[in-house]
């Protein structure tokens, strides 16, 4: 399952863990029935390890946590949002390879 470096985000802990985070936070919006989301999961795990200490990586299950998904008008998954200072600075919809994601993250660390 997800590595311990990946936080489980919820409707209740989102503001505290993401909006108020000192570090940039990469949020992976996913669900069980979404094949491409499962495909992306190992990449997200690796990013959590590679950027340990520099960014926080979290996953939000949209099935269980519809409020946050609704707040950001997420209507397609997988979607990755990179938050910095509570604002969205990068957005990736659909599958992406690790290299492109690293390039995006590197702009903000």
């Amino acid at each position, binding site marked *: 399952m997800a590595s311990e470096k990946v936080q489980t985000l919820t409707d209740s802990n989102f503001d505290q863990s993401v909006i108020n985070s000192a570090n940039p936070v990469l949020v992976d919006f996913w*669900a069980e*029935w*979404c*094949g*491409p*989301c499962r*495909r992306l999961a*190992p990449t997200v795990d690796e990013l959590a390890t590679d950027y340990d200490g520099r960014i926080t990586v979290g996953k939000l299950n*949209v*099935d269980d946590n519809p409020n946050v*998904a609704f707040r950001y*008008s*997420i*209507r*397609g*998954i*997988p*979607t990755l949002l990179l938050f910095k200072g509570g604002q969205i600075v990068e*957005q990736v*919809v*659909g*599958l*992406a*390879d*690790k*290299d492109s994601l690293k390039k995006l993250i590197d702009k903000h660390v």
Partner: protein
Amino acid sequence: MLRNVIIIGSGPAGLTAALYTSRANLQPLVVEGLEAGGQLMLTTMVENWPGHKDGVMGPDLMMEMREQAQRFGAEIVRGNVTAVDLSSTPFKVRTADAEYLARALIIATGASARLLGLPSERKLMGHGVSTCATCDGYFFRGKPIAVIGGGDSAMEEAIFLTKFASHVTVVHRRDALRASKIMQDKAFANPKISFEWNTEVDDVKDTAAGVVTTIVLHNNKTGERKELPVEGVFVAIGHDPNTSLFKGQLEMDPNGYVITHAGTRTSVPAVFACGDVQDHIYRQAVTAAGSGCMAAIDAEKYLEGVPQHIGEAVQAGQAVQAAE
């Protein structure tokens, strides 16, 4: 490390090629690609795979193919090929993490969903615009949506989406579907599906609001414009072959499909192509698998005629280099 054969892609074509080449003791390496498993990973029940009489879930079928190839020794690695060099042998295949060398190459990179090409479509991707009904249908429970397209994929998506949506409008630019009869009949019989014929999409609104609220349509026969309130737009207008890697290195037709002859041979000896990347006519999982088998046999026959030493330049069918 030099491999006998590298297979690029892991859909039905790539995995069948992997199965056959591994059973031929060629120790193939498969580079999975970003959309590992191919297009069947995005579908639900597959009813037309011969041998699964009661149907099989797309992802399950791909898992079976993968495990079957691995059982005979195929090595499947996660990774996306970013560049290939086919100008000399051994061929070079590069991913973000490694560079591989191959005596023979099997290209099975398949095809990806085509988009309408509208800026609003791109801006609203993930915010109401989608190319994956199984991934995103959930977000439109009880909402009206549109499916753009007229082929089997569009019908499949439309029918699937009636499980969630309040209503599905199929928008097609002609007055007849190109989907198979059985899919057409299913769609016509579904009370939640209606059709806008001879209709094209001009724009998707509302980019300022950041979510889909409407699509702007025009009838290409009458010129009539209208706006259809929808909260989701599923684009299912076909697929384009994934051949950008091979531009300038392999002969392709005007639509980007790799040209094959005498089976799966391409314009470069020792490079073979199978599946949707070289097929714009049939594009079925079973025809892709069939061509994957052909590519494996073509590659095996080729390798049987090639000298084992890396340094040797003579290749079957390739012009001998001018003597220095």
